[in-house]
């Protein structure tokens, strides 16, 4: 029996975890900072080196990691409902492929960072519109058609990415590879991602019970009064925007969008009213911690965060899939 009290408890718990993960991200690094000093630095009443490091280096990066992890998990949960497929993730419809082509193309031309971000965002939107337009076809877009179109567009983007990598000069390759794996050391400002996260949750939560019904089939949902066509259009746009903003900020970080909604679903069930905010918080926690590890375990060397999320994500996902057959496609 779903109750509001249980939902609030779950969300409160995850919010505390989120706060803890942010504190860890601000404290850890080549210059360890104590919790008290973090508080002082954030309140702005000191100007020493530690405070400067926390304020201008670690805080934007931690917030970007948190917001993007949350966006990817939210988009993943939405895509899984939209495609009624537990194996869907935010990239399944070619959004990251499009973003990769845009970002790598901009890097190949030697454009500044701002235009690389712009390229990623335009690429993501172009791929989204392409898939949506093609899958819509004669007006009725089934899940299978949408999924197939997305997979094919993603494959096409993959080929273009391979082409760019093979003709790119040596000195640009490292940056490109890091972008493809997801990397927060060149992250854009966290503001757009935080704003998108707030907007995304505000837009999705009022419709979360409708989404519960959508997950049970179009006909069931429509018979119970859910405006399915409008809802699916809205979910598609929202998931695509969330993914595009996340990918633009951090590159194509993998597995957060697939694994986090699953983890949360296994822990608390598939009620979207709890699942959506809980997955967003859990995604934020995972990416914040993964990024903290990525910049500390082999410091001063930095690892691309996408490698860590995948290294954590793949075994966890395989474990869940073998342990619980009903969590997978059935």
């Amino acid at each position, binding site marked *: *029996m779903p109750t*509001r009290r249980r939902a609030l408890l779950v969300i409160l718990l995850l919010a505390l975890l989120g706060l803890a993960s942010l504190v860890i991200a601000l404290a850890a690094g080549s210059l360890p900072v104590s919790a008290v000093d973090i508080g002082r630095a954030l309140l702005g009443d000191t100007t020493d080196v530690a405070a400067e490091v926390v304020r201008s280096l670690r805080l934007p990066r931690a917030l970007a990691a948190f917001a993007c992890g949350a966006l990817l998990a939210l988009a993943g949960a939405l895509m899984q409902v939209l495609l009624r*497929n537990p194996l869907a993730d935010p990239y399944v419809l070619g959004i990251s492929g499009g973003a990769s082509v845009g970002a790598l193309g901009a890097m190949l031309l030697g454009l500044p960072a701002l235009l690389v971000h712009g390229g990623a965002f335009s690429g993501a939107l172009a791929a989204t519109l392409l898939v949506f337009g093609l899958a819509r076809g004669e007006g009725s877009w089934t899940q299978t058609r949408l999924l197939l179109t997305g997979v094919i567009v993603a494959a096409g983007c993959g080929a273009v990415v391979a082409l760019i990598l093979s003709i790119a000069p040596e000195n640009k390759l490292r940056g490109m590879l890091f972008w493809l794996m997801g990397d927060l050391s060149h992250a854009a400002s966290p503001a757009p991602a935080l704003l998108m996260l707030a907007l995304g949750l505000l837009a999705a939560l009022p419709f979360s*019970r409708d989404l519960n019904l959508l*997950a049970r*089939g179009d*006909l069931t949902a429509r*018979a119970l*009064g859910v405006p399915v066509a409008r809802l699916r259009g809205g979910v598609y746009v929202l998931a695509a925007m969330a993914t595009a903003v996340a990918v633009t900020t951090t590159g194509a970080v993998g597995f957060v969008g697939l694994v986090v909604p699953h983890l949360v679903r296994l822990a608390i*069930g598939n009620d979207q009213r709890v699942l959506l905010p809980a997955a967003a918080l859990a995604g934020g926690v995972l990416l914040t911690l993964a990024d903290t590890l990525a910049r500390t375990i082999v410091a001063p060397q930095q690892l691309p965060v996408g490698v860590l999320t995948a290294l954590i994500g793949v075994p966890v996902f395989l474990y869940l899939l073998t342990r619980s057959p009903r969590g997978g496609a059935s």
Partner: protein
Amino acid sequence: MTALLSVCDLEVNIGTVCVAAGLGFDLQAGQRLAILGRNGTGKTTLLSTLAGLREPEAGTISLCGGEYAALGARRAAQLRGLLPQGHLDAFQSTVLETALIGRHPHLGRWAWEGREDARLAREALAAVDLAGFSAREVHTLSGGERQRLAIAALLAQQPRLYLLDEPLAHLDLNHQIAVLELFSRRAREDGVGIVMVLHDINLALRHADRALLLFGEGRTLEGPAEAVLTVETLSRLYGHPLREMRDGERRYFVPD
């Protein structure tokens, strides 16, 4: 008194195939209508048209005196419920959660299911013989149990008009009778209307007041079940000769 369901001059096509043309009938409160026809004659399409989920090519459908466009999707969902054929369970869910989906049209945007909703859902589960199943995962149910769960969700919805697409699918004999008796009791005691697609002529004869036969190519026949269900019409309907047997007052049809 306004009819629960009023159909006037209805034309329904699937592509170039005509399901019904010039179809008109009224279903009063407490009446049960059985739809019979061969595979692929458009019974499901007609049912979703009657549910307001598909625009008819022509004609009007009124539910409790209002057309679907005027009622809106939410109000319509409070008045009529649809039991679809087959059930998708892509994600895990418990039996109680699944029964509770019927409460959706009665809850506000931010409202959660309350005690009363839980009581209705549990009552509905008990009515289809799933009383002890609340905490079970839907994936662990058998086909027949899953079908009864879908019926429970529909009962929890408490509509005035039930549209049932093959409600007896996957059910064993005792549950087939139990489900038909359950709906007959609701019709008699609460005055709800029932429209059901059936394949069993003898059950239709016993549990329906009216019958609608779909012959294909738009030809239909609607009327009191006793009058409409005859050897002549049914043999024509199924393209196979039938024979009528009598046991006192009761009539039975068996394939020849």
